[in-house]
């Protein structure tokens, strides 16, 4: 009985590991054609699904006055439009290139905006709940925070698009759907996680440690700044990293708000696209190299998220020791 139980527990545990490695391997295999084709240039290239002339190909399809070797931007744009109706596969003189720079930048920037927006607010909420509010208020607000965390992301997306985005556009100008709107709504979504975890780790500060600071004549602010924050630093960093992990992978709410175009934003009120949104929007029609490129993006997102969660784990382990 003891043996069977141990085996069962072991196999459940190894299932997780097998799944993790399995997902990584499948992602890699499916992304392989795109990795072979584009290599690391994929990360620095901002063109997605764009046809360019093959360097060795004859230039017959182009207008006579043009030299294929020194195409300038406008010509490529024109050519793009001309080729809309053509099938990529049959067009021997051009190839379609995929670069991941726009969605990668979009993902990182929305996450950064979300973090910059929500971090100070989350810290404020946590300090209020852990140290300032009386018990009964703290409990009520605590429950409200946890409910906020339970709202499905599509609701955030719809709310953001219909009510939040116009306000942002009024305040900051530019488009309603933009990096900024997506980042701010994402910030609202990760806020409850950060606030709740930070509050919990602040609550682990031993009462006697706070008392000894008060006994030296410290004010509440000094105790929070000098004792509670340093003491719960590890937990706070952990909460930030977990929130980051969630922000990086969020699809639905961002899909509503980011604008979904493969263009590098020049300012934060510009629309762009993020990795999960690129995958969700383009997966249906993708085939061949395009599909593979999406998997390449997925692999990159997987690696970023995995790295971030690993760092979080590392911190939590360090704390446990």
């Amino acid at each position, binding site marked *: 009985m003891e043996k069977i139980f141990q085996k069962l527990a072991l196999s459940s545990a190894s299932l997780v590991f097998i799944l993790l490695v399995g997902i990584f391997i499948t992602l890699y295999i499916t992304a392989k054609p795109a990795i072979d084709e584009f290599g690391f240039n994929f990360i620095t290239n901002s063109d997605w699904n764009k046809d360019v002339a093959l360097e060795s190909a004859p230039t017959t399809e182009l207008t006579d006055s043009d030299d294929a070797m020194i195409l300038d931007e406008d010509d490529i744009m024109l050519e793009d439009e001309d080729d809309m109706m053509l099938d990529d596969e049959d067009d021997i003189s051009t190839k379609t290139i995929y670069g991941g720079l726009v969605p990668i930048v979009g993902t990182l920037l929305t996450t950064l905006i979300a973090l910059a927006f929500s971090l100070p607010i989350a810290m404020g909420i946590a300090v209020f709940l852990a140290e300032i509010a*009386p018990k009964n208020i703290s409990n009520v607000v605590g429950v409200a925070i946890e409910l906020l965390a339970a709202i499905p992301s599509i609701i955030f997306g719809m709310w953001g698009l219909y009510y939040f985005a116009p306000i942002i556009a009024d305040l900051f100008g530019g488009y309603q759907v933009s990096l900024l709107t997506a980042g701010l709504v994402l910030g609202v979504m990760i806020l409850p996680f950060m606030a709740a975890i930070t509050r919990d780790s602040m609550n682990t500060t*031993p009462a*006697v*440690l*706070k*008392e*000894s*600071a*008060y*006994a*030296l*004549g*410290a*004010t509440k602010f*000094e105790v929070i700044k*000098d*004792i509670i924050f*340093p*003491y719960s*630093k590890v937990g706070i960093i952990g909460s930030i990293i977990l929130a980051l992990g969630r922000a990086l992978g969020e699809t639905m709410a961002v899909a509503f708000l980011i604008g979904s175009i493969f263009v590098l934003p020049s300012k934060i009120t510009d629309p762009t696209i993020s990795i999960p949104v690129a995958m969700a929007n383009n997966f249906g029609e993708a085939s061949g190299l395009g599909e593979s490129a999406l998997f390449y993006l997925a692999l990159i997102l997987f690696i970023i998220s995995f790295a971030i969660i690993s760092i979080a784990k590392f911190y939590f382990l360090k704390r446990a020791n």
Partner: protein
Amino acid sequence: MPVLNIKKFSFTYPGVDHPSLKDINLPIKRHKITALIGPSGCGKSTLLRSMNRIHDLYPGNKYEGKIEFTDTDKNISDILDIKKENEFIELRQKIGMIFQKPTPFPMSIFDNVAYGLKISGVKNKTELADRVEIALKGSALWREVHDRLDKSAMGLSGGQQQRLCIARAVAVKPEVLLFDEPTSALDPISTGAIEELIVELKKDVSIAIVTHNMQQASRISDYTAFMYLGDLVEYNKTENIFLNPQEKKTEDYITGRFG
């Protein structure tokens, strides 16, 4: 004139009907060590924690009576009258406290000792360094830590941490130090070092110490108060309490018949 004079003092915790301390009258004499002894739950820590109003971090306590504090300039004030935060800060700079477990702050050894000075407005680097050195020497810790002042205080042993906490409290030059069972978490050797240090300190400060350990009270204190179930049963010179107790309860306790 005692530095603290507790008069007809009663204390009730929030949400409790009967008071935890009833009609206490007790002087804490200047440059003497006053020990508070008694079985668990007798209210000795509650009394100690009233003297710097650390109870007030948690709302809803009821005080009655007076705790008169006479400072070095002979000004008398009632500690129980204090209501404003800046008055609490002033009070706690004059009446320091050492807790049961060592409570080093999550910062370096130097910053721990300098903390009370910094928050009271001392900014001058050399003055800080001087006063930290004096406090650490005064707590018999300087020799052990002078070459690693910038290291985390968490790396010190339990006994060293407790001496660090004493240095931290001493650095702000308080008039009274309250010790709440300062050695109950320490080994015998560290305990000895702390006891020596406390006796050394009474040159500069007046001391009240709560202890479970009757030998400790008899070794270091000048006066002893025996408390039982919220009452102050007997207060006298330490030798009288231990050699010639007036009350039956005191005698039963110090001879180990209960407690």
